[in-house]
């Protein structure tokens, strides 16, 4: 009985979160009418979402590329000539590793930060104060963050893609005995611009998910420091789960239907 009650509560909470997220998206969309007065806020959030995440993305992506080179070389040594190492790294990075890993590490960092900030504002009545001043929190707080997510995650993904391929390139040259010409020729082989574009479309969606889940968890925070901590955890967990589910759906749509 207790198990059913827990499951019921979890289901209700999930539906509430989905409902809240829907309302937040709708109200943020409505606030685009006052976009002209929000550029300062948007640029501030773009810096916090994108520029401040760069060190983490740089480290993650360089080593991701390096590991990808070693793994591809090891896994496929019996089946593929080394000429295709560049091809395999390039495709795996731009289609999957770049967008998804960047989204996961940025989601952990920025999603928690957004939820904690908005959650603190909620429990200390700062959001009530904003509404009392006739300032819409969805325009002032949510819309700039969602827009920053939509713009900055693809930008970070481009950087991550370049650095990951560079990491793979260096490891291929230094440790795997693949010359730079062979690696680059491999990248050119089977190059398809749709791969890069598809990866960036996914990154755009992931950026929106991270910002939206952070805002939803933050605005729903209740009950002081514990509530803020729970909001940060909820933001990271839900955005990571949604990124992985969304990755499957988008990959199927983009590469299975649109670019197939």
């Amino acid at each position, binding site marked *: 009985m207790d198990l059913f009650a827990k499951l019921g509560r979890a289901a209700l909470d999930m539906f509430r979160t989905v409902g809240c997220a829907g309302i937040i998206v709708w109200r943020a969309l409505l606030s685009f009418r006052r976009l002209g007065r929000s550029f300062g806020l948007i640029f501030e959030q773009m810096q916090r979402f994108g520029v401040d995440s760069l060190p983490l993305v740089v480290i993650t992506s360089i080593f991701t590329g390096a590991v990808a080179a070693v793994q591809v070389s090891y896994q496929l040594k019996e089946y593929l000539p080394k000429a295709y190492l560049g091809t395999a790294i390039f495709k795996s990075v731009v289609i999957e590793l770049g967008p998804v890993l960047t989204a996961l590490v940025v989601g952990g960092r920025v999603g928690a930060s957004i939820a904690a900030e908005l959650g603190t504002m909620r429990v200390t009545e700062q959001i009530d104060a904003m*509404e009392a001043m006739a*300032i819409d929190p969805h325009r002032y707080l949510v819309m700039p963050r969602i827009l920053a997510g939509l713009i900055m995650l693809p930008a970070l993904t481009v950087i991550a893609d370049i650095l990951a391929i560079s990491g793979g390139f260096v490891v291929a040259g230094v440790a795997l005995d693949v010359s730079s010409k062979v690696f680059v020729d491999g990248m050119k082989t089977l190059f398809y611009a749709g791969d890069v574009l598809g990866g960036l479309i996914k990154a755009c969606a992931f950026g929106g998910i991270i910002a939206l889940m952070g805002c939803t968890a933050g605005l729903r925070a209740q009950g002081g420091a514990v509530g803020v901590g729970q909001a940060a955890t909820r933001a990271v967990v839900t955005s990571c789960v949604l990124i992985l589910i969304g990755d499957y759906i988008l990959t199927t749509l983009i590469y299975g239907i649109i670019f197939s």
Partner: protein
Amino acid sequence: MTDARTRSHGSFIHVDDLHKSFGDNEVLRGITFDVFEGETLVILGASGCGKSVLLKHIIALMHPDSGRIDYRGENIFDMRPAELNEVRMKFGMVFQGAALFDSMTVGENVGLPAFEHWGTRGADLEALVEEKLSLVGLSGIAKLRPSEISGGMKKRVALARAIALDPDIILYDEPTTGLDPIMAEQINELIRDTQKELGATSIVVTHDLHSACFIGDRVALVEAGKIEFVGTTEELVDTDQEAVRNFIARGHANRDRPEPDFTCSF
């Protein structure tokens, strides 16, 4: 006299049969009262009786289960968001914990409403911020952060922010809670002075009987989610109503209680 003066201007906020529950906890059980233009109405009651919830309904930060609040004859809960924002711009609210935006400086906090609604920028905004800060006796602190000022100063900054748009009505949620007696007295005087200077209507939520008598023209006593008494401060002291007598007696009991000895607390 005050009652006659305020009533002659007519009611411009009318709270009618307001009910609000949180789960099984019925916080407001049919609250009805009027607020008259130019008066200071104190909503008095013990902690947890629902008075802060009531104040949040007056500015539509919460929505009731039933009942209505009319501002100049229009139910604020039926208004479209744009209409509600127009009404909210006529209100200023001082929150219990001041609710200053801690990512901004004091000046940015005070200037935010004018920046957002009037498009005030640069030197004009600085002048407006300085004017409002000097009204609450805090000139020259615009560059400080909320974390760098005391609790009493935060309440004053919150009042400066609340009066930034020259509101018709100022709402105060427990303005003296958490302050030492001297600072509480200063805030009481500031509320009275601000009311005199701006002529704005004030609604003050407090549990402090002394504050209520000092700043209020009229008092509404809330007990267990209901209004038990509405009248002038003189009528409050003279009435025979049991709920009022009990509240006053509790207030005196608390006041007469000796200061706790904290020397061995740790």
